């Protein structure tokens, strides 16, 4: 049967075991486009939208789990309180039509260096949940993303969701592109001020082969912050921007020069940090 429409994870894994080369179809915004443009010819498709375990979100043991089928629109409209940074990231994705269709699982599976949700998920130390006949496992996002459009997902595995710690404190995500709407970002930046653990966490997109963090910048600004007042000296904010920019490895292409990407991520970093501070 060329298309499987399983309704639970077990049936999905069975289908995947039966045809390990099958294409997994979530929102379609990547796969169907690839088929349209004749870059891929599916022999077997496993459609995931009916798989109940991939839908919705829940909180257990203080950790949040988001199902792989959660769309950007759901994040934007329904989860803005729970995951404000992810909601900001979701708002920058494509158009209403794309946000209505595209899913978190799809963004993870495609693993574009410019994937809009990935910087925030990285900043949050998200873990990717994978199910397979051998059992479930969780892989930290940093290890899951192995390069441009390549991941640690094994052929028999299914991305079922992401797990995140609950983090208290302000967060911000913003992106720069050559056009306002529907644009592949030339730089994307996410910041989370974890006020419980008093740690600054960051993620940067489109400025390296995959999403990046800047441990040096995080460390320095974590120390420079006055965590009680949520303020930061101006020179430390500037240094934070510089350190973030230095941690990037951008490329030059027709969308932007590497130099501008580096510069832009520094500006985004400073601004995002300021947005999180008390004024």
């Amino acid at each position, binding site marked *: 049967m060329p298309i499987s429409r399983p309704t639970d994870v077990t049936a999905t894994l069975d289908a995947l075991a039966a045809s390990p080369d099958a294409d997994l179809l979530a929102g379609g915004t990547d796969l169907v486009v690839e088929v349209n443009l*004749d870059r891929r010819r599916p022999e077997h498709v496993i459609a995931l939208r009916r798989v109940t375990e991939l839908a919705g979100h829940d909180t257990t043991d203080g950790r949040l789990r988001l199902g792989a089928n959660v769309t950007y629109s759901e994040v934007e409209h329904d989860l803005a309180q729970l995951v404000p940074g992810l909601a900001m990231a979701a708002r920058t994705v494509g*158009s209403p039509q794309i946000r209505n269709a595209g899913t978190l699982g799809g963004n993870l599976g495609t693993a574009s260096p410019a994937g809009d949700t990935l910087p925030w998920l990285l900043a949050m130390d998200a873990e990717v949940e994978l199910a397979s006949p051998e059992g479930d496992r969780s892989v930290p996002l940093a290890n899951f993303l192995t390069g441009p459009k390549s991941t640690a997902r094994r052929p028999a595995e299914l991305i079922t969701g992401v797990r995140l710690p609950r983090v208290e404190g302000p967060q911000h995500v913003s992106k720069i592109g*050559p056009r*306002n709407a529907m644009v592949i970002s030339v730089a994307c930046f996410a910041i989370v001020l974890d006020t419980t653990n008093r740690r600054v966490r960051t993620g940067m997109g489109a400025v390296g082969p995959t999403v990046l963090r800047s441990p040096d910048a995080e460390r320095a600004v974590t120390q420079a912050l006055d965590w009680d007042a949520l303020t930061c000296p101006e020179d430390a904010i500037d240094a934070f921007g510089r350190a973030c920019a230095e941690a990037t490895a951008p490329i030059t292409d*027709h969308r932007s*020069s590497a130099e*501008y990407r580096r510069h832009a991520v520094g500006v985004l970093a400073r*601004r995002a940090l300021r947005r999180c501070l008390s004024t």
Partner: protein
Amino acid sequence: MTTRSVGAPVARSEDPRLLRGEGRYLDDLGHDAFQIAMVRSPHAHARVLDIDVSGALEVEGLIAIHTFEDLPPRLQEPLPLLLPHPSLTAGRTQHLLADGEVNHVGEAVVMVTATDRYAAEDAAERILVEYDPLPAVVGPERARAAEHAVHDDVPDNVAAHLEQSIGDAPAAIGAAPNRLRFRLDIERSASTPMEGRGTYARWDGDDERVRLHTSTQAPTSVRAAVAAFLGLQLAQVECIAPDIGGGFGVKIMHPWPEEILVPWAARELGHDVKFTEDRREHFVSANHERAQVHWIDVGFDDDGRVLGLDVEFIHDHGAYIPYGLIVPIITSTQLIGPYKLENYRVVFDSVYTNTTPVSPYRGAGRPQGCFAMERTIDRIAAHLGKDRTEVRSVNFLQPEEMPYDFGLTFQDGRPLRYDSGDFPASLEKLKQLVDWDGFEERRAAAEAEGRLLGIGLATYVEGTGVGPYEGGHVLIEPGGTVQVSTGLSTQGQGHQTVFAQIVADELGVDLADVRVVTGDTRRFPYAVGTFASRAAVMSGNAIHLAARRVREKALRIASEALEVDAEDLELADGQARVVGSPDTAIDLKVVATLSNPLRYAFDESARIATQFANPGKEGQPPVTDDDEPGLEATDYYSPMSSTFANGMHAVEVSVDPDTSDIEVVRYAVVHDCGPLLNPRIVQGQVLGGVAQGVGGALYERMAYDEHGQLQNASFMDFLMPYATEVPSVDIDHLETPSPLNPLGIKGAGEAGVIPGAAAIAAAIEDATGVVIDAMPISPSQLHEQRLTTAQDRPGDTT
């Protein structure tokens, strides 16, 4: 009395069906037709060594594969050079399928026909073409450096070299107290309509006729080309432009190779055949425009008056030049704008590159010319420390000098002669509209918020309504419906509504009773096409003249029927009636019936025209020598020269000092196209043009790499503006009528796009202090320019 509809913002009659999704564009037709897929060159420049089709033969649904070798001799001839010119000494055009060499990525090499598009593409993918890559020539300067040649027999890559001049520019510049020299660049862009190219042909073997539907701006000329290539009489070819999903110039290019190959294949295969390109094909196979490099040398006095202007430019016309020199000629003549230049020399080289060919895109060379002239005026103002509007004012041609003959030859081979316009009045309106004098306060306020605000303006004059002619046919049916047709086709401009307005007014009938057909050679076989903002001027006036004839005939027949003097009659409410005593009246449909002497009463209403009911005048035949049956007329409008519309745009941009992000925050337009036939439609044209101008200034470019590969051939990377990128636009009109045509109108289709790049460049320059000499500009580019450019205001580069 019927309300006058010309000048009113009436709703478009085209829209209800389009709104319901009932528009029928090319790909909505020919559902059961065989489908074409083209094997296209992946190389910018290569010899074709071998084509192996064997792998494709097994594909289910495959109907035929054609290479150049498989075409009959006539179809092995290159495409016509549509616009020959004495200076176009090395004109080369493409073959329908590559003849041993490809000269741009996307050039058609093999045609595959199959039962559906999937099968055609499957087969196309299995055809192996062996290429021997050759060095690619990319960019106007590399073309002119001529290290490599695009065409072996044109070693310098120059197709044409043309010089025109007024007075003695070099001498005037030499004697001028001030002189500036600089270079300007405009990159490639393209029309990029939402609907790409497409052609659908049906061969009727019993009738030996081909019916061609094609998404074109020039159906009559496509028809003639098809007849010529296929060896058919014109009477055997019908060409129809269905609903067209936008043109913006690219669909004036014709015949596309597919417009010949599709009807030929339909005849060969005895089956309907259709070609619809996909988006990537459109990017690499449908023509582009805009790319030019200019070198300016200008001399001026201390008031900023231009004493001499010398412009040299290179025009990159891509791999072939089927559309001749129209674009660079327009650039070189329309560059002048609203200014009275007495010493002007312009010289250009039109050069081959291994990129997609170039033909007009809305604006057609004017945005480049406007950029050159308006950047020049801004540099003069900066050099002298004067207000930019002041320098424009001292250079304006004055309204009392109209008509003004520059002594140059325009794109239609006729003199460049401005017929109308009041540039000082337009500028005054623009300054009011944008509050030019209040800008410094706004700048200071923005600065306090950490934004760099800048203002710029640009002016242009646009030759519109070029000849040679258009025609119109108007017929009142005995049922009362008024049938109107004209030969040129429509791509969303609302022609059907506007032409109906003209006819409704002339004939005193309800708009709803007027049916307009455009772009169907079965209805009107004589036409030139839709380009150069000419449809309203040309077809509008032709239809107006035809309607006037119908009116005269209706009045004559009515006066005979009512036995009153024709001069006492008026046409109103669908009747001919006596002025002042409307009870003495006759319905126009009755007049139409009477206009056609009948033998047979095929229905009740026809009885009055039959031979015993209406025997005619004694001593005269039923149809007299100077008459003909039917209440209809055909007329043509052919102007002595183009009519010149003009306009001025002012723009405010806000630049983010950190990211160099550019936002257009205010956009004002003053536009003069004479009387507005339908203000809502004219303003819609202007708004659409402005959006393309903004796109062309900030987002849209064809990003070729050095190997001639187009790196951004998709909507994901060729960044057309969405609603989030287009500013609100304030529009004001000045209506100086053209003395050249009965309606006094001037074209409006292209105007909105022309000054966009120039005005936005000026505003960015004003905001940042960085000299902007190349467009479009991205935040990334502006950032780098701000880093590398000295922060002084534009000025001395002598």
